[in-house]
């Protein structure tokens, strides 16, 4: 599908997020830009503290208010009327409708994000009735339809079930049903399968793919599991210490990663096809994930990088370069390394 400009659902430009802490100001995220087209899945990959969850919360405007946290840059989201909404400057009352209507979120741990003392049905119908003019009875019917859609068996009986009566996989399905209740055009899924078994993870990934085909919604999938990325993503954005360090379509990214961090990540995953051959040590990235409050100077990855050059990488902060085949990479030496 060739994408026209009307197919762009979300445009993020120069997003920066700063927190005020006891130790002074710290930049959690800086210079994050990307756009998302209809039906597309963008995987946001990174380790703890890389800024992927904070970025997604900023898109939902769910971060604490200034002066604790300041968000700058621009986030533009396509509204249901086709126009673009400026998310960062919308009044809170308007934003409340945008959450759910235009963009929704599914979190990692469904047990902590569902209300334990309310039935599944009550929680779903609450969302529906907040956003759509619907009576109780009609909302119940809609909830049954949604639970059915996400593959929960005996959906009608589940309306009166409490979250603890469902298994982890079923709870995550209920969360997805809730997120889909107002047919958002963008769904943000923050590690939605990390707490689940691989068998259940496969079911949930399958479900998301099917729903995406049916509705054309775009998905931002936050994960650290490269296997899951390979499975679902169209495009991948790799984050490190609050910055985008590489962005590319999924196949080129896995085939020829440009940024040394991405290369290291891909190499450190054991390959299933060599299982049982004990092929020697895994190639690990040395050192530790940097403390987001004290990022190293220059390129934040330089203390762990095999291509580090003193006086250059630890001094000059690399800009995000755009390659001839429209990939993005943040490394001073990427073209030397690729050659």
């Amino acid at each position, binding site marked *: 599908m060739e994408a026209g400009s009307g197919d762009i659902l979300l445009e993020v430009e120069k997003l920066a997020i700063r927190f005020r802490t006891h130790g002074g100001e710290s930049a959690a995220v800086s210079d994050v830009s990307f756009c998302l087209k209809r039906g597309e899945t963008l995987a946001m990959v990174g380790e703890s503290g890389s800024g992927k969850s904070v970025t997604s919360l900023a898109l939902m405007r769910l971060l604490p208010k200034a002066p604790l946290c300041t968000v700058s840059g621009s986030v533009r989201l396509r509204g249901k009327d086709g126009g673009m909404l400026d998310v960062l400057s919308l009044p809170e009352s308007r934003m409340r409708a945008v959450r759910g209507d235009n963009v929704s979120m599914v979190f990692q741990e469904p047990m902590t994000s569902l209300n334990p003392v309310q039935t599944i049905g009550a929680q779903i119908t609450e969302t529906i009735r907040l956003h759509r003019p619907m009576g109780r009875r009609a909302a119940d019917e809609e909830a049954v339809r949604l639970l059915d859609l996400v593959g929960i068996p005996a959906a009608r009986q589940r309306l009166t079930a409490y979250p603890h009566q469902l298994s982890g996989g079923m709870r995550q399905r209920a969360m997805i049903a809730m997120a889909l209740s107002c047919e958002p055009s963008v769904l943000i899924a923050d590690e939605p399968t990390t707490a689940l078994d691989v*068998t259940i993870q496969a079911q949930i990934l399958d479900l998301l793919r099917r729903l995406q085909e049916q509705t054309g919604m775009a998905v931002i999938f936050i994960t650290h599991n490269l296997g899951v990325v390979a499975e679902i993503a169209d495009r991948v954005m790799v984050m490190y210490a609050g910055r985008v360090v590489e962005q590319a379509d999924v196949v080129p990214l896995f085939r020829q990663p440009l940024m040394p961090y991405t290369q290291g990540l891909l190499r450190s995953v054991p390959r299933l096809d060599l299982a049982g051959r004990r092929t020697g040590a895994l190639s690990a990235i040395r050192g530790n994930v940097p403390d987001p409050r004290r990022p190293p100077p220059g390129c934040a990855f330089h203390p762990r990088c095999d291509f580090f050059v003193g006086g250059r990488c630890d001094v000059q902060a690399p800009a995000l370069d755009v390659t001839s085949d429209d990939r993005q990479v943040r490394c001073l030496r990427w073209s030397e390394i690729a050659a």
Partner: protein
Amino acid sequence: MSAILEVENLRKWFPVGGGLFGRGQKQVKALDGVSFTVKPGEILSVVGESGSGKTTLGRTVLRLAEPTGGAIRFEGQDITTLSRRALRPLRRRMQLVFQDPFASLNPRMSVERIVAAPLIIQGGISRAGRQERVAEMLQLVGLQPHHAERHPHELSGGQRQRVGIARALIMNPSFLVADEPVSALDVSIQAQVVNLLLELKERLGLTILFIAHDLAVVGHISDRIAVMYLGRVVELAEAGTLFRDPRHPYTEALFSAAPIPDPTLRRERVILQGDIPSPIDPPSGCAFRTRCRHALPACAAAVPPLREVGPGHFSACIRDDITLQASVSTP
């Protein structure tokens, strides 16, 4: 070579519910007739979904949970019913590395005290001797001597897991149970800890029971793999065999669900329906039959025994007539 650990028909049941005096009480059969042996110097992995009993297995073979029945023999000695006092000298030889390095280290203690704790408990060593041993251990797991004075909150996740490993190794154990030792760590750190475990195994001649759910890590680290489902071992074989020639439909499904980091690879997925059933009321016969695409009426009749289906390859499935899909092709 004789086995370092032999587990025979091990059972661990937890009572649930019921009224006063246990009337109407039911049993969760977390382990229900598990038998296997671990050879000296090997890494045997235990995989399965949550609720399959793998963590209970690790705790029970170390006698951290009391077995309900069956036998555990460690280095030839039956330890199933040994008293705490009689177990103490054996504890030096068998140690545990925990999953969560954030929860398993006492935040008020320095790294030195954490690592030295087993020495203090076992006694008979001077303060200077203790410090020397701790320094030796820290070096062994790739930490610096100055880390001894640090507290857990000053360390990263990977460093904390190294502390947990140093603590487990300070008594020179021969056998280690590692319960999901890398799953709480960042991807780039996981490989470091996996490499460390393999290196230590070689250097110290360790035997490891490795409990995990990440099949890529398991495939890399294991000599043999046991697949558990609802408290039983359903298949056990050498690691490569299990990936290339699975004989139990559950192994096929579990391994085919593992995502492979290669976007050009499109596999035929075996997607399991539903969840693992409740261990309070497991299905009759083969417990997996409710989710199995190869199930026959006969599967409900009796629990299929673990049979040898190839050299060193055991499977508990009555369907010898089916061909299952390998999760990887031979490179």
